[in-house]
């Protein structure tokens, strides 16, 4: 997949066509996905079809986008080795390595 068109809203009656921005790439659990510069990690994940961003420690239950503005802790991921980073509030950076949190 070269361009981030997965589940992007390319056309919108009010907002117009999706503005062109530089594309960068982030690795999600070792697999590279495209991302739009300036967007949060979670937007790139959703656009690439990654819906489950972590599973809970005790029951292994799936979690994904919930509040989208950093108030809840449902979308915490590991970024470049740093744990518990909110995917909804952290912007992508080319070459960033994201690991979804999985219970053992």
């Amino acid at each position: 997949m070269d361009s981030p068109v997965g589940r992007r809203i390319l056309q919108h009656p009010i907002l117009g066509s999706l503005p062109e921005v530089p594309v960068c790439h982030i690795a999600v659990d070792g697999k590279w996905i495209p991302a739009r510069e300036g967007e949060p990690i979670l937007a790139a994940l959703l656009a690439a079809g990654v819906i489950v961003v972590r599973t809970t420690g005790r029951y292994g239950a799936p979690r994904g986008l919930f509040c989208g503005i950093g108030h809840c802790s449902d979308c915490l991921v590991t970024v470049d080795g740093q744990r518990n980073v909110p995917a909804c509030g952290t912007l992508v950076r080319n070459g960033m390595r994201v690991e979804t949190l999985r219970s053992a």
Partner: protein
Amino acid sequence: MRQLVTEVLVIGAGPAGLSAARSAAGQGADVVLADSNRLSGGQLLKQTHKFFGSTRHGAGMRGMDLARKLTTESEREGVRLLLGVSAVGRFAEGVVLKDGQDRLVLAKAQRYVIAVGASERGIAFPGWTLPGVMTAGAAQTFVNLHRVSIGDHVLVVGSGNVGLLLAYHLRQAGSDVVGIAEARREITGWAVHASKIRRLGIPVFTGVAIEGARGQDRVSEVTFRSSHRRWGGTCRLNVPADAVCLAVGLSPRTQLLQQIGCELAFSAVLGGTVPVHDRCMQTTLPGWYVAGDAAGVEEATVAMEEGQLAGLSAAHGLGYGSSRSYERKKAEILVSLDELRAGPLGGDRKAAKEELCLSRSR
């Protein structure tokens, strides 16, 4: 710790905070406006629809354009915007702010305006933690700001203005809205928004309770139950949906207000715990003002008026502007607020706000 000195510090750059900053700076005060988001505008940024009502309240403008307008006007008045910065709390010498790199700044001001808005409520039902179940605000943020679809077949829970508008926004963005589920017997939002939904042919199921959501790694089906007469006794309805958006109300964000130590009260009509404040928007802590949803959940139009009033009052307290012009502007805003709280849906809010002012004098 780095220090920042200003006359007025406004926390929160939504419609209330922007209006407060703009009006205080317009009076000549030195104003800093801080927000944890990287963009100013708050919830206005996600509102692609046009406001309606009177010109004074931005009728005919889209929320997202209003956000830009308020920001430009604030900057023109000399407001210093600090974005990506959140307020940690009140300390002896001022308010400590934290930026994205966890660096702290001590902001020393003579007046503070807290305009931190509201947080969304949720409802718990079996399966509510499944990916695909999210708040209405999350859906609006991802669809209208980040331009990523959150689902192909979406069920909206709650028929207030937020739920109705979200259904409209989702349809605009190309999602199929399978319906709006409402626990009450009637649609709770304004007729103007409900009519849009009706014209789009989106069904609103009233008098239903969510029984559960099912799915493997993502929600795939929702069951709700009704005991409405029209349905002929209790019945269950299964709706296939790959996303469920909860638009079940908002509560004022009171963490900071609790921490600063001003008096709080409870008001169901205004969304829960609210700060006691006077007609000039001052809390029980002298020099600390509040405006917008943080002072009781209402509409963006109310937030802008309250913000303007808080900003003017803060500036007046610092000696800016003549008392005569302050009293005249204040009276004008109070009349406008009364107009906005007129009608069957606003009357309760008006009474609740008046009670908040009264509990101060007790």
